[in-house]
């Protein structure tokens, strides 16, 4: 039975994801029976689900570590170095997000919340693993649909509802764009398989088909820009970040960006007929467009963040501007790397930036949720007044993460920005130099509002004595993130090597 054997082999490539999905199934099936009809659950139920989720993630991580790297694509999956890197990143981020959610969620909805998170993680991984346009789209939807539920579960007031609906509508809208673009690609090449697509795209002649392909790519870019929170597709972000629970904001600030860039890096090179990421760089028109979006996103995000009073909105704008920084890496890609093989590459810098940004951003949200209480969560900057007196350890860790986001040494954020800057600067075109200078300029603008967060924590007197309920797992997640932020600065080599390997850059 060759078909069965193929299926068996293909399943062997996605053991971590199978573990996650199996856990999701168990949780969705079992959870309703543990909650009474009035919606009451036995106290402490969330701890059991939390343990189960962590166990499942740890098993997935173990399976990921054991997974072979150099296997050829089987069926719809291609577990290459790129997928390996992304999977590791999402699974570790998943552990941190689980820790935040553990404190935030209520017993009655714990199972569904955790299950949604796991499904989102599996979705991100599928996009990275996929060898097929359909697989990529399914993965993207596997991220979106649980996100709607997760956002809705987090809080039940009108702000949360508004945020969820807004996210839902815009997300569907953007998915439609992506699907439309993908179907054009299919129409032009007659295949959805990425490797076949690569071969056929090479033979595409400049002309009508070429223009159609460009149009399709632009539609895909527009659709995915929603996930990257790139201007002008960013409008939902501040409202949604403000409306939903911090655990969901932490997730939204990171995973959609990962999945957006992964999808871009899967589809774009293939449509240009390039097999190796290291040899790919966007076509001139695309590069111009992406560079423009990057410049606008960085600057607009930072300038808008300057005038925010709500700390969650502020972080939303900061997250938008970070999306802009990452787009710099995507725009630069590796046009320079193609001529000098071991030169700094924009894609490697992007791959380095993603996890560093992830730990800093998740850390900030973890600590914000640790500093607030269920009755009085941290909302405005005023809620943070005097945090250094009421919660000195939390304030210190939060400052580490915030300094990391602003890109100052001694944090990993500095090296991440430095790599992007060097990559953009070394490409040696007018556009890339402009990108690099905009990046540096934005670091100064951004420092102003990051300093405000530090400022209110350290230089203002505490207004109310908030006796926070102990939120140990959020604090733990924050501690891991802030220590990791500093550790990446001290020992960055392994992460760079992994990031460079992920985009197929061979290190000497």
């Amino acid at each position, binding site marked *: 039975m060759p078909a069965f054997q193929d299926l068996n082999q293909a399943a062997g490539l996605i053991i971590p994801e199978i573990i996650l999905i199996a856990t999701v199934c168990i949780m969705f099936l079992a959870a309703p029976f543990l909650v009474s009809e009035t919606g009451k659950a036995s106290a402490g139920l969330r701890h059991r689900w939390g343990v189960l989720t962590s166990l499942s993630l740890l098993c997935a991580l173990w399976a990921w570590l054991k997974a072979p790297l150099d296997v050829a694509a089987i069926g719809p999956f291609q577990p290459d170095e790129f997928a390996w890197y992304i999977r590791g990143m999402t699974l570790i981020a998943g552990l941190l997000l689980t820790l935040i959610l553990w404190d935030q969620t209520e017993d009655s909805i714990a199972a569904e919340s955790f299950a949604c998170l796991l499904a989102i993680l599996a979705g991100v991984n599928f996009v990275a693993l996929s060898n097929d346009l359909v697989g990529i789209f399914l993965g993207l939807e596997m991220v979106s649909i649980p996100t709607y539920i997760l956002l809705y579960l987090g809080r039940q007031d009108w702000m949360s509802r508004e945020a969820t609906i807004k996210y839902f509508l815009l997300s569907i809208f953007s998915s439609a764009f992506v699907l439309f673009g993908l179907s054009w690609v299919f129409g032009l090449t007659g295949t959805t398989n990425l490797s076949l697509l690569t071969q056929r795209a090479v033979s595409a002649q400049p002309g009508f088909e070429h223009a159609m392909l460009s149009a399709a790519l632009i539609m895909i870019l527009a659709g995915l820009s929603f996930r990257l929170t790139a201007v002008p597709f960013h409008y939902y972000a501040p409202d949604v970040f403000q409306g939903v629970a911090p655990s969901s904001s932490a997730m939204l600030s990171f995973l959609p960006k990962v999945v957006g860039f992964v999808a871009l890096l899967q589809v774009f090179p293939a449509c240009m007929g390039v097999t190796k990421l290291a040899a790919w760089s966007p076509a001139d028109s695309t590069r111009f467009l992406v560079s423009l979006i990057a410049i606008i996103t960085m600057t607009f995000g930072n300038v808008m963040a300057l005038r925010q009073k709500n700390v969650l909105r502020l972080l939303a704008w900061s997250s938008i501007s970070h999306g802009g920084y990452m787009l710099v890496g995507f725009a630069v890609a590796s046009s320079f*790397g193609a001529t*000098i093989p*071991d*030169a*700094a*590459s924009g894609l*490697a*810098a992007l791959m*380095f930036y993603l996890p560093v940004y992830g730990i800093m951003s998740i850390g900030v949200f973890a600590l914000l949720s640790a500093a607030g209480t269920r009755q009085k969560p941290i909302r405005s900057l005023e809620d943070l007044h005097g945090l250094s007196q009421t919660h*000195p350890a939390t304030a*210190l860790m939060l400052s580490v993460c915030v*300094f990391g986001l602003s890109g*100052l*040494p*001694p944090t990993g954020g*500095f*090296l991440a920005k*430095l*790599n992007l*800057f*060097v990559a953009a*600067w*070394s490409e*040696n075109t007018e556009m890339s130099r402009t990108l*690099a*200078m905009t990046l*540096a*300029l934005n*670091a*100064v603008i951004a*420092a*102003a509002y990051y*300093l405000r967060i530090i*400022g209110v924590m*350290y*230089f203002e007197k505490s207004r109310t004595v908030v006796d926070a309920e102990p939120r140990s797992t959020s604090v733990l997640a924050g501690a891991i993130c802030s220590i990791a932020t500093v550790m990446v600065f001290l020992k*960055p*080599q392994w992460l*760079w090597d992994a990031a*460079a390997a992920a985009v197929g*850059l061979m*290190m000497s």
Partner: protein
Amino acid sequence: MQALLFITLAIPTVTAVLLMLFRSSLATANARWVAVCGGSLALLCSVFLLARYHSAGAMSLESGMKPLTSTVSPDSVLQPKVEYVHTWLKSGRMQLDLYFGVDGISVAMIALTTLLTVSAILISWESIQDRAAEFYAALLLLETGLVGVFCSFDLILFYVFFEMTLIPLFFLIAVWGGKERKWAAVKFFLYTLAGSLVTLSGLIYVVLYASVDPTGPANLTSLPALSAWLKAHPIPAQLQTTLFIAVSMGFLIKVPVFPFHTWLPLAHVEAPTAGSIVLAGVLLKLGSYGFLRICLPLFPEASVAIGLPVIGLLSVIGIIYGSLCALAQTDIKKLVAYSSVAHLGFCMLGLFALNTEGITGSVLQMINHGLSTGALFIIVGMIYERYHTREMSEMSGLATRLPRIAVFMVFISMSSIGLPGLNGFVGEFLSLAGMFRANPVYSALGTTGVILGAWYLLTAVQKVFFGTLVEPHHGDHDVDDMNPREFLAIAPLAILCLWIGVKPGPLLDMIRPDIKAVVDHLEKVPRNAAEGAPSETPAVEASAE
């Protein structure tokens, strides 16, 4: 000696981390003891480092051999004698190293840093009661950053430490500062950050310039390797000028040279005494040190072409402008702050004379200004602690009440003014003498700064300490004169002021080879710019008014 260097760098960090970890369980009294122990240990290590460096140098003079093993190519302009290199991040062609090393200049600057930090801790003993552990932790982290700058020979590492000093000082000003502290801290932070990011862009440009050339150095960010390579392959003049301006930006702001100085008086006035001591004593020198370490070796032609006329001119304006501003102040701390602008002007004037006397004078001036202005801020802090005011109009004749402080004030003022026999004289004289050879007009105009300096400082001393006794309101009991702790904080600085003034020889011997290498490098550049100098004269006078 490598180990000694590491210990000097590690002790403040470890102490700071300990202070933060046991923050809640440490009372103020214990925290300051921990801090002073850590600070003194670092001082001890740096003194050992200095002594061993000096003795090794003396031995090499006798035997004519290279004192310490070094991998630096003899072509390099920078010759660190002690080195430690460890790969930090190799991303493509760009390789960042943890490249620590010391030469004569840096070893002296490190000793100055550790000494001033101990003084700063001692002077904060009583005045800092609120969140003391965090205060000392920030101060010690600042020390780490400063020592780090002075011992890094990798461009990016230099920048990392350069930036790292911002965060602790930001906290020192904003948490423990005066009334306008928040604004002062933010202004200081953003202003210097903006400048240093321009510097970073310039540095990265240089590195990438070297990286495209196949003959480029293997290790692009290593300062000695890069300077040796640029010696053989100079950057084209046009590009060199642009890069010089870009890299200078951060340093000009840090020093601060005349139009970029606006953040300084505010930061000084609002900072707590300890912050002012370290800010004036060491932090400002990061700017002039950066010029000496990066701009002069890497961009020699631009240094001659625009460094000498433009930055020289700005320094002259800074000297006169700073002195006049100091003369107009009624707040004694503001007076000292503006005097810093003027004194750093001498330092930059000497540096951009670009000859041996000038640069030697400039390095001496860096150390002298650290000692004397550090001591002046200590005295201002003592007065403020006793009377809670710094207005000169409210006090007079304090010498009868505070005779010991008055003695030190007079002594330090003499040093700051540049009385022969004290340290200020040696530095200012060498700087001005060097500039006289390069551009007599600048030198002559700069000399007026010495006279103005005497005017404002002596006026201040006379107003505050002599005449009839007028004390500001300060409660019922009489204020005490200087206590042993304060004496311990200021006495070493005063002794060093005297020692450098009387016997600058050992210090000069130690820094001479390093300066000679830079000057040799600069003298290869054709000096046609010097002819253009007299035509600048009307502009100088116009702006000096």
